[in-house]
């Protein structure tokens, strides 16, 4: 993880987010629109459920045969003229990229948005190496100007309203927009970015897919920034997670159909480009060198330790767009590279469970994320897996452990349980007035915000027994 040291706890970050009404407006605008558009796109798709099955099956197949497909990809990428590098950790991946940049004598790089780059801390590593970085994706450009971190994997700047972006451009752009329209703001960013893009020595991108049988990589964008920042520079570096592999083009096409619809509700992104090796003899343009850095960073371990299904993820963001918790607190509160349900599963892998145990618990297990996931990742089940690990490792608060332990002990003794529940309802009876309890000891979390209905004077079991005796 890169960026400033964040000492706030998850709850503190969530409280800050909940107090930020502008954030709520910003998240609601983008995620709300995405939710609506996705629903329309899915409805129009012939048998989306079968397509989800196929997408999940493709990913499960490659994850089960990861080594073989990666070797096939490597051989074909090399045959196409690319250089392939392997990195087992985030640090190793950054070191490889920095070394390539240094060997190319790069003073500045143009980067096309990549969550893998964020995951391995590449922006930070480039800064440390004294290499200038131009973020070419519009939202990443906003984030770079604001010196923040992405809050969503598809819309890194979704936490900002257009009004905030306008103020930011006016403060930071050399010749900012005058008219308060989105078109004028986009034009301002274009003026700012285009010369910097074309002047970069190295272009760095991620990959949405790695195609094993051709050695090609695929990027999708809506702004064309990848194409513009990757083709002109002398060197193109790709950093990609090893799980991005698909066997062949038809598989990539199937995944693309799922990805675009699940992410934005569009049938396809504006720009979908396949890059196979560097410039060849006779090509009019293209980089002289193409390097592909294949990054593990915990993925092999995930496969071995019960998180193989998470490796299906194609980073569409549908889970977070539909998550009631994300919709309230936005992405930054999660504290990791990836927010929302998929982030809650991934962050403990990268940052450790001790640091991030709250994420798996801060979920209502309502199952909506799983319902919309294009590759059917059982996110609630995986989150419950982290809860179980956290419980086993003693990371859960003592009060919770004792409370649940005591309750379970009594619940395993039905006769004692009947006595205890009878006493409990009569105690609660005394606390209530007019049917409601507005302050309940040990349940302050409940009564701080809502009332608790007063229970009946007798439990069901007490009433039932009495009735049966009559």
């Amino acid at each position, binding site marked *: 993880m890169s960026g400033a040291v964040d000492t706030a706890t998850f709850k503190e970050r969530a409280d800050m987010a909940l107090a930020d009404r502008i954030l709520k407006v910003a998240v609601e605008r983008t995620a709300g629109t995405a939710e609506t558009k996705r629903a329309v796109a899915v409805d129009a798709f012939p048998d989306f459920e079968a397509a989800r099955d196929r997408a999940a099956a493709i990913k499960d197949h490659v994850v089960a045969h990861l080594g073989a497909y990666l070797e096939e990809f490597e051989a074909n990428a090399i045959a196409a003229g690319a250089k392939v590098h392997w990195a087992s950790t985030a640090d190793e991946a950054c070191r490889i990229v920095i070394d390539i940049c240094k060997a190319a004598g790069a003073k500045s790089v143009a980067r096309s948005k990549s969550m893998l780059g964020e995951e391995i801390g590449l922006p930070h590593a480039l800064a440390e190496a004294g290499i200038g970085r131009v973020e070419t994706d519009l939202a990443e450009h906003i984030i770079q100007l604001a010196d923040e971190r992405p809050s969503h994997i598809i819309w890194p700047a979704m936490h900002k309203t257009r009004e905030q972006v306008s103020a930011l451009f006016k403060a930071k752009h050399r010749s900012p927009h005058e008219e308060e329209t989105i078109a004028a703001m986009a034009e301002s960013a274009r003026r700012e970015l285009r010369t910097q893009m074309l002047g970069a020595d190295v272009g760095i991108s991620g990959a949405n897919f790695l195609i094993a049988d051709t050695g090609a990589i695929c990027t999708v964008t809506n702004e064309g920034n990848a194409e513009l920042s990757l083709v002109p520079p002398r060197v193109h570096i790709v950093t990609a997670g090893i799980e991005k592999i698909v066997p062949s083009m038809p598989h990539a096409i199937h995944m693309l159909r799922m990805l675009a619809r699940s992410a934005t509700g569009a049938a396809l992104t504006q720009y979908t480009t396949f890059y196979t090796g560097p410039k060849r003899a006779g090509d009019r343009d293209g980089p002289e060198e193409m390097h592909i850095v294949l990054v593990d960073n915990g993925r092999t371990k995930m496969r071995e330790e019960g998180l193989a299904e998470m490796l299906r993820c194609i980073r569409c963001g549908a889970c977070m767009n539909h998550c009631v918790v994300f919709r309230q607190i936005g992405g930054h509160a999660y504290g990791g590279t990836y927010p929302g349900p998929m982030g809650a599963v991934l962050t403990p892998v990268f940052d450790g469970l001790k640091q991030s145990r709250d994420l798996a*618990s801060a*979920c*209502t297990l309502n199952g909506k994320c799983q319902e919309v996931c294009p590759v059917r990742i059982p996110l609630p089940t995986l989150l419950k897996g*982290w809860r179980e690990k956290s419980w086993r490792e003693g990371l859960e608060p003592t009060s919770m452990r004792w409370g*649940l332990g005591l309750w379970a002990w009594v*619940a395993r003794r039905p006769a004692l349980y009947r006595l205890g529940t009878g006493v409990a309802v009569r105690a609660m009876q005394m606390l209530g007035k007019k049917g409601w309890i507005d302050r309940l000891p040990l349940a302050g979390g409940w009564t701080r915000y809502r009332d608790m209905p*007063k229970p*009946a004077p007798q439990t*069901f079991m007490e009433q039932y027994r009495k009735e049966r005796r009559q």
Partner: protein
Amino acid sequence: MTRTVALFVTCLVDLMRPRIGFAAIRALEAAGCEVVVPEGQTCCGQPALNSGDRDHAVALAKQTIEALEPYEAVVVPSGSCAGTIRCHYPELFEHDAVWLPRAQAVAGKTFEVMAYLDEVCGWRPEGVALDAKATYHDSCSGLRELGIKAQPRRLLKGIDGLHFAPLKGEETCCGFGGTFCVKYPAISNAIVGEKADAIDATGADLLLAGDLGCLMNMAGKLNRKGSKVRAFHAIELIAGMGDGPAIGEEA
């Protein structure tokens, strides 16, 4: 042929709102079932299961399986408790050759009460009338684990005088989430606050749902904000008990 069904009351209904259990019995008897309430039951173990406390979840699951396995069917007035037994018990005993078949057997004959009345009994309420406008919230576990959506609506249609106002975001979680609502009260409050606003916006007199936990969360928020909407478990209306006290009203 009389069906003998075991009622799994659920700990929340036992403790907080017994009349839901009695409504279930009344509706099941009207549908021609003989209802028994097995003695050995307490809680299905869902709170332990969802908190990561596997050992206690397993112990309570075994106790519940033992209490319920003698009966030909098990009926539960809660989607999330029925979902725990149907979907999660077999997962809990995935690697236990002795308990897995027992868990699967109980899972296979456990039903949420409205699904049972509608799909298994093919029953509809008769002679039940209630002049009111209601809105319906689909509780998440029932909806997504058990596919409960049309069944309660089909049953409620049989009530004379009851009409419906659609709830915007009827499939959106209310923010209850079991222990979630007390572990992360501020987030839960933000979610249920939006839900309460949506419920109020329907102009309905009644809020109906199939899970007491969600109902207590929504009703508690509605009451705190001074709303006049009254909350019932749908089975109470279906059993002809919609003229009694709503959640949080004195009998």
